[in-house]
């Protein structure tokens, strides 16, 4: 029988610590926004000041409503990581935007501000493909 996935709060506690670290380290210089290869695919970011976008991301991390630009950036972040070496303060902007996306998706308890992809069949679909290609013994011993 499958073990239950039991949350203890340790993951949220880590995310909270990371949020505090990022809020203390980011100087809002906007270099991370300038380095992002996905910013061009976000309409709200067209012509936006990189510093303002970064400031909006920090607002999200503080639990404040996100600006259109910040929400637009969080929505198109696909973890290229180009922002990480661009940051002069070693903030890890990829982590910063990832947490902002969790906040904006409502994943940490606040209101949902960007559309989340809901795929209710995700796990059953994976199990379906497994049934087509793995033996019963493999499913029993590997999954």
């Amino acid at each position, binding site marked *: 029988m499958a073990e239950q996935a039991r949350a203890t709060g340790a993951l949220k506690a880590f995310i909270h610590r990371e949020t505090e670290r990022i809020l203390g380290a980011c100087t809002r210089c906007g270099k991370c926004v300038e380095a992002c290869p996905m910013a061009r695919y976000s309409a709200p970011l067209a012509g936006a000041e990189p510093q303002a976008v970064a400031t909006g991301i920090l607002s999200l991390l503080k639990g404040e409503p996100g600006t259109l630009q910040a929400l637009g950036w969080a929505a198109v972040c*696909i973890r290229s990581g180009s922002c990480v070496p661009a940051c002069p303060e070693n903030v890890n902007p990829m982590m910063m935007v990832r947490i902002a996306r969790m906040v904006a998706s409502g994943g940490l308890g606040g209101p949902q501000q960007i559309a989340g992809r809901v795929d209710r069949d995700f*796990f059953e679909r994976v199990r379906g493909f497994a*049934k087509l290609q793995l033996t019963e013994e493999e499913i029993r011993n590997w999954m």
Partner: protein
Amino acid sequence: MGERITFWYGCNVLRHGDIIHSCVDILRRLGFDVQPAGGPDYCCGSSKDANQTAADGMAHRTVTKFNHLQRERVVAWCPSCHSHMTDFMGQAYPADFALDYFVDLLYEHRDALAALLTHPVPLRVLLHKHVGFNDKVKVNAKAPALLRLIPGIEVVEDDYAAPGYMCAQLASVPAAMADMVRNTLRLADAHRADAVVTLFHQCYRELCGLEAAGATQVFNYVQLLARSMGLAYPDEYKEWKKSGPHAAATIGDARLAQVGVQFFERAMLPELVKRPPGLDAKSNQPSTGETK
């Protein structure tokens, strides 16, 4: 007995049984004592950005299960799983194992791997790369080195790397996905490549539709390593993509009954008939959309 490792293949690669079986065989032929582990009960939770309570539970369960296996190394196949373990799960829950990545392990044992690659694979290939994940594992450098161990293969040099770290995320931004497809096809043509080769299963899932559409051959690098080793697992997912709306007939009634016809048609068939964006509907060549 070889080193006891856990091969953490992940969730979505279960679409590609040939890749999982080939990886396990490769690891065993390299002398490892392999315990494969994956699927929903070993999910990393990285897809649960919108529900961190669920992600927390998944992280707790998966790290605990790996700890109970008491194997020194967990070797990840999926870059999402590897990244999430590094960045989140392992930060929240103490892990009693080292985390490694499949490409790193093969590269570490490339001399032994080369001795197993005896069958020529005469292909000139373009490697499909992404910008991301290389801060954790130098896949864009190491994967071509592994491919070049295969007799007969030629990997063309090209600097293009798509945004993101694999195509699953890119697919959520359709304009970016279409640009990547157009760029990839144009480069394959410019380099006179016989095939596009992906690193990750998610990219393979998206791009093997290009072969189904008749635009170019597409492989995952493990499939080429397996071919050179003489392993012969059929690539059923690609066959189903090629069958498109007739995939059910290709799968067959008996196997389809295992998942249920209604579920298959509602939840599995749509991705098998999906065409990659960025393709002209008539010519199957890159569409004329503007590449940014």
